[in-house]
């Protein structure tokens, strides 16, 4: 039996199918063009990246060669940083006596007449004990006022009186105060 297509009755449906395939052909062309452009553009970008990479490689090699010729300069700075940091670390274990002694001496000037530092002992952990000598009770009282003042106490993280004595020799009185404490950390830059 022969197959027949009735174009009159199913014209609308056939036209739709025809249109569908027409769009499919157009889509194929467009896809091909897009694919082609996309491929070419990306290839160009990739080539550019490759060029950049090569330039970076060359630049790196250039610097490496330069550094190879001048490697002792970097070594010198590394050596200095290394040694100086070791020196600075070691100095943290130093008693650093002089600045703390001067600090105490200067702070005692606020008490007038200023007492005499008879003896002082300072440890590397900044703990200290010192003995102050006074000629009179009035001088002693002035110091007591100073010892309670913030100007004097700001130099110490702790300070306490641990000894008091009186020596009398031919009508000359000599009062001695022994104090124990710990200095606050000074600026590490000496001198």
């Amino acid at each position: 039996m022969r197959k027949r297509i009735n174009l009159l009755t199913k014209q609308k449906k056939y036209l739709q199918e025809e249109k569908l395939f027409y769009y499919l052909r157009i889509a194929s062309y467009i896809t091909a063009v897009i694919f082609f452009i996309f491929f070419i553009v990306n290839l160009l970008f990739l080539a550019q990246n490759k060029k950049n990479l090569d330039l970076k490689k060359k630049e790196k090699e250039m610097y490496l060669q330069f550094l190879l010729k001048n490697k002792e300069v970097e070594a010198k700075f590394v050596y200095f940083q290394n040694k100086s940091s070791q020196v600075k670390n070691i100095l943290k274990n130093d008693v650093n006596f002089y600045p703390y002694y001067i600090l105490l001496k200067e702070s005692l000037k606020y008490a007038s007449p200023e007492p005499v530092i008879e003896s002082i002992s300072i440890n590397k952990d900044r703990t200290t004990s010192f003995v102050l000598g006074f000629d009179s009770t009035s001088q002693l009282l002035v110091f007591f006022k100073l010892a309670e003042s913030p100007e004097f106490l700001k130099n110490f993280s702790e300070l306490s009186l641990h000894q008091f004595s009186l020596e009398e020799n031919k009508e000359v009185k000599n009062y001695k105060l022994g104090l124990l404490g710990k200095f606050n950390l000074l600026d590490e830059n000496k001198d």
Partner: protein
Amino acid sequence: MKTKTDYYLIRLIKENLAYVIIFVVLIIVLVGVIIFFTNQYATDKKAIDKFQKEIMVLKNKASLVEYKDKIINEGIDIDQANRLVGQLLPDQEDYFSIIIALEKISQRTNFIITSYVISLSSKKPGEGLRLNITGQGDLDSFMNFLKDYNFSGGRLITIDKIDFSNKEFSKIALGVNFYTSKPSSFSQKQDIRLTEEDKNFIKLLENKIQIELKSAESIDTSYPTKSNPF
């Protein structure tokens, strides 16, 4: 119920089969190409970033050559600075330099070191070499000593504890420490350019150890020496 065969559609499919295949293949290839290019871009970007970071580090190191000359204009010579710190903290113990250091300090401060005892047995690795010294002088010379003992002998010296009395200067006993240290590992991530603190430190050393350096330059050290004169 028997479905009718759409011959027209079949004919259309046959006629456009090439387009259908091309369309499907292009879509598949396009997806593949997008994935490929995306990966390639990511790889390239990673490589370029890596190179850029490496170049930055190298550039930074390379500029040290210029920097070395630049700081000379500021009065800082890294070679001299290294001689100073190397002298302060030698890699190996040199007992001769300890004796010289004590003599230098005596000369510079007038605090005369009359005797010293080196306790070699007490030296532990990583710690200083301890010397018990006895000295004499007046208040000024002792204060000068206390101001300058760290560097002025040309060797790094620390003291753990100082007992000071304003009446007794004839026989002052002190325990001093000398140090040696080999350069330890240093993180290359750190900037090795000199900070203002470093520059001040170098200037301080130059002031304190100037005489020692000048005399050291004229000393011929090519003669054979014993490693331990004690």
